């Protein structure tokens, strides 16, 4: 009983620390990566006892700054909703990662531990629901601030979310059809199969259109450039104008955590999750017949490493997109969502269905 509790706690703690640390680290990555892309050096002045570590202390300095800043609430604001909004925003971003598997089952003393915070048989729907609920925090922030600009920002966010979430849901359907499950673990396992004996059946291979649609809609749901018109921090100001201190920090954190979640979802659904090419439960089995047998623990460690590296790569790629593309105009993003992504993802479902029917016949 106590062991079960400990194992469950450990699984949750792993995911929680993974997401929170990666989210915090992403603030550093964002500064440094954007700087390196633009031939700059980036923030490097925060130091502890003269030790700078390429600016790695800046996230800590940011946290201290935000925690010690004045926490201002506008006089006419709805105090309850105003305080609740950042919590809602961050909470749903954090819990979304729970259904993403970071490795296959770990066998210890005859006990089978799925490497996933919760093993849900509707994992895809759960993540989808949590991502959609995140927009409530944004809308609450816009409404409770008693500020017209914040309200308009909240409305822009809601409009963007609705047009993006539909495309996310519809593009995931193709993956669910190919692997025949809504369970993230089953989908990740299904991606270990080999096509024609050599090509790993990752989602990006079986669903290339779905991958592009999901990534586009996923970036839109993180509310970051090129879809950052809900905030538009440089000029049109968005839903968090009235927020200061750590409440603002929580909104910023939610953005980074959503980036991690989208990176994790892309990894789990399209990049094979924890799969390493040709790595089976007994070790590597290459298509040309070579075999390397590995112990169970080594296999699990490789899987977790592969998952982490894939998520890190996706975070890097999302940052690359964020620092390359200019912002979409509001109407352009609406048109892209409703006239581009949505019909294409329906087309993807239909095409996937026809191909699957043809393969089964």
């Amino acid at each position, binding site marked *: 009983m106590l062991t079960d509790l400990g194992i469950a706690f450990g699984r949750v703690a792993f995911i929680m620390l993974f997401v929170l640390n990666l989210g915090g680290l992403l603030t550093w990555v964002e500064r440094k*990566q954007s*700087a*390196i*892309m*633009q*031939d*700059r*050096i980036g923030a490097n002045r925060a130091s502890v006892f003269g030790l700078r570590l390429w600016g790695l202390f800046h996230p800590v300095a940011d946290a201290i700054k935000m925690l010690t800043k004045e926490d201002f609430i506008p006089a006419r604001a709805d105090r309850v909703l105003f305080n609740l909004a950042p919590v809602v925003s961050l909470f749903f971003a954090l819990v979304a990662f729970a259904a993403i598997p970071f490795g296959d089952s770990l066998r210890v003393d005859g006990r089978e531990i799925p490497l996933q915070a919760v093993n849900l048989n509707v994992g895809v729907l759960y993540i989808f629901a949590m991502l959609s609920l995140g927009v409530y925090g944004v809308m609450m922030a816009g409404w409770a601030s008693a500020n017209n600009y914040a309200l308009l920002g909240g409305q822009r966010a809601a409009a963007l979310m609705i047009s993006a979430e539909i495309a996310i849901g519809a593009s995931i359907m193709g993956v669910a059809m190919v692997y025949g499950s809504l369970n993230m673990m089953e989908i990740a396992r299904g991606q270990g199969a080999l096509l024609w004996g050599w090509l790993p059946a990752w989602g990006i291979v079986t669903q290339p259109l779905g991958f*592009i649609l999901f990534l586009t809609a996923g970036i839109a749901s993180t509310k970051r450039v090129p879809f950052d018109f809900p905030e538009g921090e440089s000029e049109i100001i968005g839903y968090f104008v009235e927020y200061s201190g750590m409440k603002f920090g929580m909104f910023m954190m939610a953005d980074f955590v959503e980036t991690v979640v989208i990176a994790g979802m892309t990894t789990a659904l399209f990049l094979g999750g924890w799969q390493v090419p040709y790595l089976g439960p007994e070790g590597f089995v290459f298509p040309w017949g070579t075999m390397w047998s590995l112990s169970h623990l080594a296999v699990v460690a490789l899987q977790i490493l592969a998952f982490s590296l894939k998520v890190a790569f996706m975070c890097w790629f999302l940052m*690359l*997109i964020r*620092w*390359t*593309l200019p912002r979409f105009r509001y109407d352009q993003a609406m048109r892209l969502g409703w006239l581009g992504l949505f019909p294409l993802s329906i087309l993807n479902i239909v095409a996937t269905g026809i191909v699957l029917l043809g393969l089964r016949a």
Partner: protein
Amino acid sequence: MGFDSRLTFRQRFYLVEVLAGLGITAAHFFRNLGGHIARTIFRSKRIRGAVTIQYPEERRPYSPRLRSLHRLVRREDGSPRCVACMMCETVCPARCIYIVAGELPNPDIEKVPVRFDIDVGKCVFCGFCVEACPEDAIRMDTGILEFSSYSRGGMVYTMDVLLSLEPAGPDGAPRSTVPKALWAKER
């Protein structure tokens, strides 16, 4: 005439163009990252991963024509070359120069400044005072650019301070410093 703003299908399709843009930024990223890593490993100043000059530690050479903080030129015997003719005070558009003239028994010179104050806080760095001076007694070639102060009084440079400043070196780097007492001066 002009630029055809109609987009081709490939450009309107967006995805190809986006990938091309991502290729450019990713190439910059990896080239600069390689530069940073090589710089750290080989400890070489010649390899650069960024165009940044980290200002207080690194400085780019200043042009010899740069107009920086003023100084008063001295004669061989160390007395100010200024003859208090008031030309600079008259020409100054910002009226930041304040001179009080005194007499000198030497018939070749006759006049000398008793006070020569420049309020750098008002100065617009036009260089008219240097142009107007018939004796080449005021110059703006110290290379000193950092003379901020916590008070307005700290921006007023008196004659003895102005006389103590040296011209900049050949690379434009200042050879004299602003007296620290001025930084926190209250008046």
